[in-house]
């Protein structure tokens, strides 16, 4: 294991938003537990999909954010990430495969590591409204994944 320490994001962001003048700290969603389902079939027989927080189009500051879908048949030249909170001094998102690993998964499909890469990937908007995420966005994405008969989903947030 590399000798690197994690960033304590919740404390860091709490102090940051406090400095921005927000009096009430954001209440992160919490659950008593997480439902767990073991794999029902081997990975080599499973269809894998990607869910990303990037977008296939540029989102303006005040634009309503919505679930979006892209195709994995060709790796997108670009996915839009500027409106997300990642460290824009330390790195970049020019390499789509670094956060939406279509190429890697396609190769794994060809090698038989996974059964199949789903032909669609899904973009979930980062949303401070937990009810919007739980009641609208997640069910919409789930419906799409079920329609595509996906077995495994990689959630890759930025």
């Amino acid at each position, binding site marked *: 294991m590399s000798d690197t320490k994690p960033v304590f994001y919740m404390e860091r962001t709490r102090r940051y938003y406090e400095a*921005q003048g927000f009096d009430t700290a954001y209440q992160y969603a919490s659950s008593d537990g997480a439902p767990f389902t073991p794999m029902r079939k081997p990975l080599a027989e499973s269809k894998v999909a990607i869910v990303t927080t990037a977008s296939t189009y540029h989102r303006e500051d005040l634009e309503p954010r919505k679930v979006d879908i892209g195709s994995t048949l060709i790796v997108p030249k670009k996915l839009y990430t500027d409106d997300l909170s990642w*460290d824009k001094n330390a790195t970049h998102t020019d390499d789509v495969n*670094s956060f939406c690993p279509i190429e890697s998964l396609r190769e794994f499909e060809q090698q038989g590591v996974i059964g199949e890469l789903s032909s669609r990937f899904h973009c979930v908007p980062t949303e401070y409204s937990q009810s919007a995420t739980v009641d609208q966005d997640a069910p919409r994405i789930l419906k799409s994944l079920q329609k595509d008969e996906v077995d*495994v989903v990689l959630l890759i947030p930025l």
Partner: protein
Amino acid sequence: MQQRIVSHGLQLLARASSAETIEYSDESWGYDDWKAAYMEVNDHNRAALLKQGDELRANRQVRQKRDFS
């Protein structure tokens, strides 16, 4: 390296026996200096952050007005 990281994730998924199974990868890249500076609050940026907050609150009001109208 990208393939190795994705492979590690897939293998973890395949062998996980409970929720919140955590593993650490041996992969490392870049440097860690950014961690100290990430979302840093100091005397040099405090005023600018407060101004940013004012803009965010103004935008939020516009959104709420639009979304609930």
